[in-house]
């Protein structure tokens, strides 16, 4: 009888309160902290000083730990149904000189600074991380990813959210289906696939693609950029540039090597500032509807071929600081127009300094301007 009353009391107690369960493992420098959280958010505070990892979950879920010399692992057999009482949070306190390998099947991940690497994965929540001294992979099917500086390589992926990261010491890979990408200085190469705008302050080789939105790259060794609708701009590209937008401007404030750019509708403006005047400095700039403007140095050796496919009525089509063969004479602003100006494309050629780098400038409708730098 007493035993039965005790059991009933215990079960009443259990249904009334959520027990906080704890687990603890000693951990050595450079070890890996593994957390597999089938439910709930994971928060890792990396300010522990005593070489021990503490884990606490505010629920009745049973924690399982596996403590080894090189790794400590925490998991639970909790199921989705365990969340009907509300949000679960895994609170982990660990020293910062470890590697992180965290999986939150259905929650957010939030970690502080770590000296090792960080692999953070969730099926849907957002991921926030401080500075990571090693490599980092942060992958979510849904929310945003925000990280501080990453000293090694970085891989950030989300199916929907925006990706933001500070500086990256190695190479970087960013993929998001519907979000923006914002990154600081990336020492290595970058592959960025975004659903919206892409902003990168500085990088090595950049390959950037977005379905909709602008691409802005401050400074890069090389750029290959494509957007289905938006502008592409770069303050400085130290090597070759390839860019295409279905609709939008392309503007390069300082291009050091060859440039190939096209836009369905928009203007193209390129300032050629060669690092090596004897290098490959060819240009192929194609605008559907829009103006093409280039600024080239006086001593550039180039063979310029400029075409306006459908010249606009009464407008000057090709304007050049250099003498151009076949350049149409100045047009009267009003009055009788020579008939032959409207039958075909306007086409001009010029050899600068005896010719050399092929510069092809084309617009279906718009004007072409060639300026001395």
């Amino acid at each position, binding site marked *: 009888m007493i035993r039965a009353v005790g059991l009933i009391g215990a079960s009443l107690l259990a249904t009334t309160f959520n027990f906080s369960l704890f687990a603890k493992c000693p951990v050595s420098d450079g070890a890996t902290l593994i957390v597999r959280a089938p439910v709930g958010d994971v928060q890792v505070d990396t300010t522990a000083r005593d070489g021990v990892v503490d884990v606490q979950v505010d629920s009745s879920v049973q924690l399982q730990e596996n403590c080894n010399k090189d790794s400590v692992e925490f998991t639970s057999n909790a199921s989705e149904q365990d*969340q*009907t*009482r509300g949000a679960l949070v895994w609170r982990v306190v660990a020293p910062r000189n470890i590697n992180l390998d965290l999986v939150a099947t259905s929650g957010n991940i939030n970690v502080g600074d770590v000296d090792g690497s960080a692999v953070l994965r969730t099926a849907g929540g957002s991921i926030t991380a401080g500075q990571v001294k090693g490599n980092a992979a942060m992958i979510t099917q849904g929310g945003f990813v925000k990280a501080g500086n990453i000293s090694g390589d970085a891989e950030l992926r989300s199916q929907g*959210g925006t990706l933001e990261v500070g500086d990256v010491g190695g190479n970087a890979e960013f993929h998001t289906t519907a979000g923006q990408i914002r990154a600081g200085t990336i020492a290595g190469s970058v592959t960025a696939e975004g659903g*919206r705008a892409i902003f990168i302050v500085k990088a090595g080789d950049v390959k950037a693609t977005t379905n*909709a*939105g602008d691409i802005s790259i401050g400074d890069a060794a090389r750029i290959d950029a494509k957007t*289905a*609708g938006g502008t592409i701009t770069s303050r400085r590209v130290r090597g070759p540039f390839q860019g295409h937008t279905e609709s939008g401007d392309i503007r390069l404030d300082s291009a050091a090597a060859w440039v190939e750019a096209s836009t369905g509708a928009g203007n193209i403006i390129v300032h050629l500032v060669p690092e090596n005047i004897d290098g490959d400095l060819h240009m192929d700039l194609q605008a559907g509807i829009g103006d093409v403007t280039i600024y080239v140095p006086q001593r550039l050796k180039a063979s310029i071929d400029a075409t306006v496919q459908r010249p*606009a009525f009464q407008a000057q089509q090709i304007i050049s600081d250099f003498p151009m063969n076949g350049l149409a004479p100045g047009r009267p602003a009003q009055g009788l127009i020579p008939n032959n100006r409207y039958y075909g494309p306007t086409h001009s050629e010029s050899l600068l300094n005896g010719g050399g780098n092929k510069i092809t400038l084309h617009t279906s409708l718009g004007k072409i301007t060639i300026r001395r730098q």
Partner: protein
Amino acid sequence: MTCKEYQHQITLFLYDELSESARFELETHLHNCASCQGAYESEKAMHSVLAEDAIGWDDIPSDLLVESRKALADQLDRIEKKRSWWRMPAFSVVFTPMRMLESAALVAMGLALGVYVSNQRPVPVQTASNTGQDSQISLLRNGTISNLQVVNSDPVTGQVELAGEVSQPLRFQGKMEDDTVRNLLFSALRDANNPGSRLKAVEVLSQKPTDESIEEALINALVYDDDAGVRMRALEGLKKFADEQHVRAAFMHTLQNDDTAGIRIAAIDALMAHNSKDPAFAKSLEEAAKNDDNAYIRSKVLQFVGTSK
């Protein structure tokens, strides 16, 4: 073919829109079926009345039929793409497939009849004398002319009438309350070829989505736009209104139908953040998300349901 099906073909027959074989088949049937013959006579009489009223319709713009067909084709495309949209309980009363088709047809017919009956031109004919030379030159210098057609040409007088489309650079400044600004943005939202334009329009509209028409445009973008980035931005613009009935309904639709898990996740987060834990709403949320393949979504719904009891 049943009599009903034959009777549906009578209108097409009267407008000479039937194929040769269908026409032959219908004529044969009409000879043998008194009921259909009666329907034919009745329709023919109606057709004659309409034909009498059509006197003075000679100046029907040549592109009207093309425009009407395009409008209808666009609607049908949308219906095809978002077949599941009208299955949503909150909208099922309004958007059944048949009603959408009927609406599309009515829109096209209304457009046509409106133009015919009022004898209005969609594009007023400008003449060299009624437009200043400067504005003509400016239009031609800055604009792009496409699909230019010669509507009329009189070799004796040298008079010609041209029709086509002119697009020209646009810069417009105004407040969001200004109808022109709104219409320009709504127009950008319909630019099927330029997701960047649509995204920018959504971004601007999201700045002030308090107006009903703007909210409606954003809902439209959330539900119909092909581009995930545009849908996501529209959702972000609307999420603070996720407690309003129609916005909530659109978010529920997104939760059930959007292919991109990230957008569904944003929808569930917004729904949970902005709606009270009402058991009835929790139940519908549970129903909407119970089969979602994303663990986060299922988990969030369980939390919402569990804590709303």
